[in-house]
């Protein structure tokens, strides 16, 4: 009897153990066992909010516990770099800005996602355009980050103002300026780009579009080329057909001004469309539309947006990939956009007519193959480069310096900055 009871006890323990293990681990689509915890490092943004909305379902499906740590943009990348440097293994998934891809690539701070991406039908890399496929790639060709948002700089214009004045969205920079002048003459502000602390976003776009480059393949600065100087002179011309406050406006303020004031058109990243869906900010709902950027000597698309990847010191990389595949895969792509995130730019999403109704900007995310994609310069010294450029362009805009002189001085300064780029 005692033996029987003991055997029953052992059997019960075995059943319980099996049950518990079934609860605490699961397998991903490739059949690998998933278990334990996942630590997510996210940066407060609509994308982060959207990612978090998928956590309960993922936890229920896999039994993997997901913890989230959110850090504001201003200190997020510094915190990540410190953690990776110490090989602390603190995070399994990390969201980062594309401008930080270069230091991450140089320090091999992230895991190459190549095999996972190539082998996943659920993620389906071919559902993305070439620009989005390459967006998280290092110079070595390794993919260190998936595209978390596709945010090309696009043209936004007020349909009511343009219709009244018989204008069409600009296709060239001359048309853009001429439209702005006509709108300005009608009493509204002609156009808006940010001439404030984020002026570098528009500056590099103009330099590329005017046919210039920021630096050559040997990292020699080229910001004083004829094309680059012409771009800065054009920006100065635009200042005269902008609202007064444009000189100090940052990216957010550019958007809120366009959505709240009487301004004919603006150039800004498509990722700001989320603000347009907020009735508290958008006073012109239904009165504006989007169009591709005007073209200059070069047909370029300035592509920006978030990346997300798996740090090389992650403790649970398989579960991390399973999570990324779950959130950013094809099955949940629609849900991801509907939960408020900036669109990732899958072909199947961009062309979805039901989604286009609420997000009429989606077709702008389809970047034509004829357009050269430019993203934030992939150099580790970019932050210092950018601050120097902002200072120089501001000197031109505030009338302290002529464009050529300011760009010559900037070019000289950038030589020493670019010389510090790790080889």
């Amino acid at each position: 009897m005692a033996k029987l009871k003991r055997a029953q006890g052992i059997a019960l323990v075995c059943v319980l153990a099996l049950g518990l293990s079934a609860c605490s681990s699961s397998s991903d689509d490739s059949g690998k066992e998933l278990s334990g915890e996942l630590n997510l490092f996210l940066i407060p943004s609509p994308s982060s909010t959207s990612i978090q909305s998928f956590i309960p379902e993922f936890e229920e499906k896999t039994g993997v516990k997901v913890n989230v740590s959110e850090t504001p943009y201003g200190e997020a990348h510094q915190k990540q770099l410190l953690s990776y440097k110490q090989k602390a293994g603190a995070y399994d998934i990390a969201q980062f800005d594309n401008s930080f891809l270069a230091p991450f690539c140089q320090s091999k701070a992230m895991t190459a996602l190549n095999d996972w991406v190539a082998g996943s039908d659920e993620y389906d890399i071919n559902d993305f355009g070439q620009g989005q496929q390459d967006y998280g790639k290092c110079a070595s060709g390794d993919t260190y980050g998936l595209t978390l948002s596709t945010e090309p700089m696009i043209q936004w214009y007020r349909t009511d103002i343009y219709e009244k004045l018989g204008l069409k969205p600009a296709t060239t920079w001359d048309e853009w300026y001429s439209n702005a002048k006509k709108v300005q003459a009608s009493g509204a502000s002609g156009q808006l780009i940010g001439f404030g602390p984020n002026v570098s976003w528009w500056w590099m776009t103009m330099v590329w579009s005017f046919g210039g480059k920021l630096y050559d393949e040997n990292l020699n600065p080229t910001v004083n080329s004829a094309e680059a100087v012409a771009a800065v002179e054009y920006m100065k011309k635009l200042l005269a057909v902008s609202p007064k406050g444009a000189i100090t406006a940052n990216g957010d303020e550019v958007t809120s001004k366009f959505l709240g004031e009487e301004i004919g058109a603006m150039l800004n990243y498509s990722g700001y469309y989320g603000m347009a869906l907020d009735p508290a900010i958008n006073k012109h709902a239904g009165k504006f539309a989007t169009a591709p950027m005007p073209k200059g000597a070069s047909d370029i698309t300035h592509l920006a947006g978030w990346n997300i990847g798996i740090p090389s010191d992650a403790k649970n990389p398989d579960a991390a990939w399973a999570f990324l595949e779950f959130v950013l895969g094809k099955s949940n792509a629609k849900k991801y956009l509907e939960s408020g995130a900036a669109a990732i730019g899958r072909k199947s999403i961009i062309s979805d007519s039901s989604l286009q109704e609420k997000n009429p900007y989606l077709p702008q995310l389809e970047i034509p193959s004829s357009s050269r994609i430019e993203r934030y310069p992939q150099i580790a010294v970019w932050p210092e480069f950018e601050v120097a450029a902002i200072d120089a362009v501001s000197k031109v805009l505030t009338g302290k310096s002529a464009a050529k002189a300011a760009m010559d001085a900037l070019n000289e300064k950038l030589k020493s900055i670019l010389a510090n780029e790790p080889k």
Partner: protein
Amino acid sequence: MIALRNNKRTKISSAKPTTAFTAPTWILLSLTIVFPLLYGVYLSFLNINLGSFVPSKFIGLANYKLALTAPETYSTLLTTIELMLIGLLVQIPLGIFLAVVLHQNLKGSRFFRSVLIVPMLLTPVAVGLIFRFMFDTDIGIINWAISQAGSDGPNWLGTRNSALFAIVIVDSWQSVPFVMLLVVAALAGIPTSIYEAALVDGANKVQVFFRITLPLIVPTLLVLTMIKIMDFLKLFDTLFILTRGGPGNDTTTLGLWTYKTGFIFLEMSRAAALGVIILIITMPVYLLWRKASKSVR
């Protein structure tokens, strides 16, 4: 000999409790101030870049050489000094004026004393954000008010001079109450008999102020000036929210430049060297402050 030994023992026994009682404070101060300070100095001799995973190495005075030859160090130092001078010229006289008025104990003084210290209680970041909206050229209330008077307001944050002025306005709004409070306390310490004697001698209000009040509060004003100088040297939050150092780098102070070097450019060792330079600049001010504090005591 025995007497000498006893004397020694007394000295040792009287010294021991003091050391024991103050030891925790010294340890705490060492951990939170002395160690980070020395570590900062140590970092300034290395080449640490947060974005580079290459092991750091000793590079001697290279970071100092770089800092001292960079034009930004001097232009941002000049901005810091300009802000400091304009700020002091606005805040100290205004604080004295308000303190003297409140010291008269006129009707409503208590109410105004409470109201005037409210700005001191607010977070600089929140204050900076609110003022940024108020200074907005297109939708700000300040330019709206100016336009009601029939003229166009300046582009407050769009040019160097007006942006510096705007920063001083915001900082003064928060700092004048502090100046006022300290001066009120100093005024309360002046015996009324001196004023009574002056009135008997036929002195008018202006003479009383310049011959009695002002000389007697000079030590307090010295301390205040030193505190304000140190405040301006480390001015960050209001400035960061209001202008981010712009347009360009036009309103970037040395402190903000140090922040940008460390946390935007990720050049930690270069930022540490700039920090040490700020420390060296602040040192004489600190010594003057100590001297002034002693004279107040």
